[in-house]
């Protein structure tokens, strides 16, 4: 069990995330999903890697794998500045509340999602939303793209010590997703 960076997220339990750092493996899990969903948090607009905002990375990932996006908090406004529109708007707890209903038809009305990818949340709130999904949405897998370990996810990145590692991961993930198109 890998410890999360933020101790507030230390797991008190048995079932913990599988920590992966191979972008190809991540891309594989995304590709295998029939109805993935990318949930975008407000931190995406606050962090940039070498001058490129995380939101731009997120939008590239969504485009590369044709994943619908869900805008939480006030990130929709930041997306608009980049000329992007989310496929839906729910706060993090709202989208978790939908996802844990197996009858929900999902963002594209094609049935509930089978993979949800969280990107750009406060880690404490993100991990809590993932806890809800771990316990009450057994029909889907969860994944995170932030540079921290999220114990309640199914698949999480490690605690990247350097932003360069994170940047490299995200770029390679985008490349892998494009290659598999």
């Amino acid at each position, binding site marked *: 069990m890998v410890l999360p*960076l*933020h*101790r*507030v997220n230390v*797991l*008190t*339990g*048995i*079932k913990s995330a599988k920590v992966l750092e191979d972008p190809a493996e991540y891309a594989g899990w995304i590709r295998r999903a029939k109805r993935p969903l990318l949930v975008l*948090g*407000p931190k995406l607009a606050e962090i940039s890697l070498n001058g490129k905002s995380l939101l731009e990375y997120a939008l590239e990932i969504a485009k590369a794998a044709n994943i619908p996006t869900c805008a*939480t*908090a*006030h990130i*929709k*406004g*930041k*997306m*608009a*500045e980049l000329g992007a529109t989310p496929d*839906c*708007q729910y*706060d*993090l*707890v*709202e989208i*978790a*509340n*939908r996802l844990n*209903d197996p009858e929900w038809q999902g963002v594209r009305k094609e049935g509930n999602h089978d993979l949800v990818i969280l990107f750009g*949340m*406060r*880690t*404490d*709130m993100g991990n*809590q*939303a993932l*806890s*809800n999904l*771990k*316990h*009450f949405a*057994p029909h889907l897998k969860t994944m995170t793209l932030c540079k921290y370990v999220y114990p309640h996810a199914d698949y999480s990145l490690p605690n990247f010590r350097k932003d360069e590692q994170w940047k490299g991961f995200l770029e390679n993930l985008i490349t892998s997703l494009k290659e598999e198109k």
Partner: protein
Amino acid sequence: MAKVVETKETKKRQEVNRIIRAEDQWEPIGATPMPEITDLRNWDMRLLKTYKPWYAPFCDLCCFCTYGKCDLTECRRGACGIDISGQQGRIILLACCMGMSAHGGHARHIIDYLIEKYGEDLKIDLGDSVAVEAPHIRTVLGLKPETLADLRTAIEYVERELVHLISSLHTGQEGSYMDYESKALHASMLDHVAMEAADIAQIVGFKFPTSVADTPLVDAGLASLDSSKPIVLVVGHNPASSTNIIDYLRENDLYDKVEIGGICCTALETTRYSDRAKIVGPLSRQLYYVRTGMADVIMTDEQCIRTDIAEEAKKVGSALIATSDKACYGLEDASERDVDEIVKEMVEEGKQFLILDHEKAGEVAVKVALKLAPKRKKELISEAEAQELAKACRECEMCERVCPNLFSIGHGIRQVAEGNFEPIREIFSQCIGCGKCEEECPRNVPIFKIMQVAASKETFKVRAGRGPIMDTEIRNVGAPIVLGTIPGVIAFVGCSNYPDIDDVAEMVEEFARRKYIVVLTGCAAMVAGMKKDENGLTVYEKYPPSFDAGGVVNVGSCVSNAHITGAAMKIANIFATLPLRGNYEVIADYILNRVGAVGVAWGAMSQKAASIGTGCNRVGIPVVLGPHSSKYRRLYLSKKGEDDWTVMDGRKAELVDTGEPSPEHLAYVTESKEKAMVLIAKLCIRKNDTPQGRAVKLNHYISLYKKYMGGGLPEDLDLYVRTDKDLPIVYKREAMAYLKEVGWKPKPVLSLPTLIGTYPSKVSLEAVIH
């Protein structure tokens, strides 16, 4: 058998009638005077049908008994049979019982203390403008309290219920998460009774302001205390001891010679007693201020005090007196000892004492402060010293790992080493003051000391807490609130710690400017006044103190929260003439469907916040929480348009499917203040709004959405438009185009929406018609 049950029920009712003096005919008695755990269960289940509990377990295990630890993931049950939902409901109930008993203990102590001082027949008189003195006690118990003894009766009832509630937490008792939630709602309703009893006792016992809006503006801020004088710092919530300090200073003509400042709610209580006392700051500034060593004497009472405060005080040479049996810190009880002996040992030997005699504690505090202050050096460090200390930091990130607010503190410290003080100022404004960073630092960097260069040296103005909303104010605003033309009442309550201390002031400004009624309590009330605009004014100086459109009202401390929910009850009573007496369901139903009030506990930390918020929920008031509050692990969420929003049209006695999710959620966490503001405006919408009122509310919802969500119209706008008359003129064309695009159809406008009649209840539909 039926006869036996009837006899039992009759006897129980006779006992209730005796306690609440049923023969007093001030109002007819409703269906549930002095309700027991299951008496309002059907109301709870009706609420929870729409607002289902949403759980985010903070811990996957249960470790309550020796059968465990039990892993509850993936539908596993514990050895006792409990599942993960049941365990979450259980923990929520536990939190609500803890919160309720903290206020209940406060109430019990202060009532007993004042009865000892003034006798149990001391009259409850809240002034010329407050005739409905205790809406919670009237509504829940059915009692119209006239004396301190009646307040004690209210607390005895709360205590009786608490035993049953706590009992249900024991292994092998309750098994249903829904019933745990119903019990949590019950505990939290009682919390508001306890808070109300505590604050009424304080108002009459200490002669706090009442029946007045324009209370004094008091000095606030870390720099508000004159460090050249002896300083007594009071910390906690209960004013029994701090008021005695002031009495001693007044009686001995020493008030000009000693500074009294407070942290957390005791600061608010003390400034209600004397406007010369100062508000040092909220809970999150406690450890910081203690570690500056500015206080010559620290006097603690109860609730939200650092449990290591005795050790911290010793480290900086501040004397410490504990005054509550709830927080003794292992100290010697000197309650029976001679004052001068105690003072001598504190000054010469650095001893700390527990003194449960409040008068004696007040005298000791002043005498010790006067003797100790000349011997102590009180200085904050310079920027050059901070820079030197910061050089030890290697930015190892250990501080960030343990920070509950997830800050990169090390980065700020390293910047100080480089001579850049801006990042540490920003971090200080977001610091919740837990001290974990310093504890974890492998190089023992004195982070809190370094932060002394970051703390504001300004003083601010905060309006002293004013207690109950006046009946006269309710008469003026009842109609515009219920019809919707005053767009809402927003209550910023409780702790203000997370995520940024400036958030509350910014949100208050936004809603006051928009002519909502803004009410505040506790640490939120303090920090709202600790931000100045470009003209150097705080929100208390900019906006009127009246409970009216655009007013900013500091109601008081944590226990004053009862006056906020009480104001909503008074609207039902004074404006709508619904009887309060033992009539909880009718009043809660009225508030849920007609009073556009929203609670915001943005920086909530404690179990008290859990019970305050859950108490708001039972009485029909939704609550918005900050992001860290996801750690409370339970919310009450609807699924918006997909849920059933059928209500009864009370006048026609017909069920109507409104399709309108108002209010959309009852307990909600959001990640940013920007989104919170949009949501708050939406949560003020009620089914009873007139078209004119709805247009006002939608105007703010749309406008805030455009401001913070990057333009456009809210995706769910169609759900809140009943006819085109609901649309604000300024957005009408744009909104109509959107409504056409999404296939909107007109919906009914109800004049008397109610849930009564939609679920099994002893209350008849006639009871809601006024």
